[in-house]
């Protein structure tokens, strides 16, 4: 294969989304209170090699959408593709690893037996399973637990095992539903680092999580669902940057200069460091005023909302306009 051909193959791979969900719909038929539409219209495109966050309040349709993608729930409509192959076709999920929310395992098995079972289901050879089992259990912090019965595992340990089994066979695409659920802060950090490592190794991750800080820290793109529809989607910077405002970070102990005080919209105090929100056209004047007042300007950056604030604002807005689609970056 020539260099051009290799680059061509890479470009082709990048052009095909790792996960494509188009107009997904799930209707649970007639329930006691009428038809229950769990997912009304959801489209998600996960670029190859990205970490894509899937967010939404409880009942937004996140888990149902994932289940439809994974063949656990029959869709009422829509198109689902994994690496360019229709998800319901045989072989489509061969290159995919899945961590369900609160993973459960047959408790009569040991950790090693469970890994062997899922390795065989993934079509791996005995030798590969043996090699990957010890490596993955070690990687998720379960080294030396191969022979422990799963009935003796804590919730956090089961979560770690869930991650290990999802990584069997080195899948190109990972679907992780609440991967940090049940883990202590150290475990959560480990999982976050693991996801970044996997991304750097070329894996694509679709991450459904309630932990907005986690999603904000590692996701390239997000899709926010509300009431079974896409409420917003796009690159995380595009969604969170506040147009026309700059964050000015400065250190100082004295009074703020009057001019600066008049032009500053908002202040966040963190000890001697303060972060001011300033309209873009006033930045130079504020910086000069702070400088004249003996303050030291540490940094200037486009103002960015936290994902938590963005999420709350979006959902509050949706309460007023049910079903309305917002956002729309990438």
């Amino acid at each position, binding site marked *: 294969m020539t260099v051009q051909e290799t680059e061509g193959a890479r470009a082709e791979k990048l052009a095909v989304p790792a996960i494509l969900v188009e107009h997904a719909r799930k209707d*649970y038929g007639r329930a006691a209170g009428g038809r229950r539409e769990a997912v009304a219209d959801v489209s998600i495109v996960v670029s190859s090699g990205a970490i894509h966050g899937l967010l939404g309040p409880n009942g937004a349709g996140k888990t149902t959408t994932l*289940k439809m993608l*994974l*063949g*656990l*729930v*029959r869709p009422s409509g829509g198109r689902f593709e994994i690496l360019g192959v229709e998800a319901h076709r*045989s*072989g*489509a*999920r*061969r290159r*995919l690893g*899945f961590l*369900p929310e*609160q*993973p*459960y*395992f*047959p408790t*009569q*098995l040991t950790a090693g*037996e469970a890994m062997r*079972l*899922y390795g*065989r*289901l*993934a*079509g791996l050879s005995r030798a590969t399973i043996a090699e990957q089992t010890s490596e993955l259990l070690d990687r998720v912090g379960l080294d030396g637990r191969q022979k422990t019965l799963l009935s003796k595992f804590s919730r956090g340990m089961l979560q770690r095992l*869930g991650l290990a*089994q999802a990584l069997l066979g080195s899948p190109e695409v990972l679907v992780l539903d609440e991967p940090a659920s049940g883990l202590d802060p150290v475990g959560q950090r480990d999982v976050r680092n693991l996801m970044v490592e996997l991304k750097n190794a070329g894996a694509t991750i679709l991450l459904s999580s309630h932990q907005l800080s986690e999603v904000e820290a590692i996701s390239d793109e997000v899709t926010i669902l509300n009431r079974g529809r896409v409420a917003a989607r796009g690159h995380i910077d595009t969604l969170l940057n506040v147009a026309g405002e700059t964050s000015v970070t400065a250190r100082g102990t004295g009074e703020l200069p009057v001019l600066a005080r008049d032009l500053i919209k908002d202040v966040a105090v963190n000890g001697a460091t303060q972060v001011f929100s300033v309209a873009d056209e006033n930045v130079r004047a504020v910086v000069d005023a702070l400088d004249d007042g003996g303050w030291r300007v540490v940094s200037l950056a486009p103002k960015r909302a936290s994902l938590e604030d963005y999420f709350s604002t979006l959902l509050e807005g949706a309460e007023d306009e049910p079903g309305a689609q917002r956002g729309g970056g990438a």
Partner: protein
Amino acid sequence: MLKMLAICNSVIADAVRRKVVWVVVVFAALLAVAAPALPSYGVGVMAPVYREVAIALMWTAALTVGLALATTRIPAEVERRTVFNVISRDVRRWQYVVGTWLGMVVVLGVVLAAFAAVTIGVGAFEFGEVMWRLFEGAFGVWLEVSVIMSLALALSCQFGAITSAVGGLAFAFIGHSVVGLFNLPEGVRPPWYWPTLDVFNIVNPVAHGSGYGLTYAIAMVVAFIAWSALWLLTGSLIFWRRDL
């Protein structure tokens, strides 16, 4: 095929650790040991009656173990969500259903083989006769109970354990009494679509005759395949339509 075997192995591992299987097997073995001491066997036909009792015990134990396995496995896997890790892995739903059933058939086969060995040993000790034909009896029971398990498993793809067990028992009952139930005249066979398990009636040739022979064994195997395929196909369709 490898995926079905992996599921089959996991069912076997699960069954080995389940108390109900061992309790039934031990209880039935104790009954087999005690069987020769039971009174009123008849006049001078002790060994044939013993064989009849042994086959009845095998059938009862196998049905208990079979229904306990077939009616609980899938509902429990769905309820505990352990099935997610299987189905999400490019495993077709029919592979899951058939693999599960195969595991149960293997467990049942081992239980029946062990049980037949116990009854043969007791028979040899009590009557001085090695009753190899009891293996033939065990084979017939194995095929029949496997068919009943396939129906119970199919029902369990949608319903709970009790409904599935009742369905399995009803099938066993109707399957053996369809002629009497519908007052069919002597010698008249029910239409092909009426469920009948009469082909698996092997008590007389095994207990009182000289065995049922190869041709009859083949007929039983054909009936076993046909019935099992029908119920497993039904179960797979039910499970395929089900949201997990």
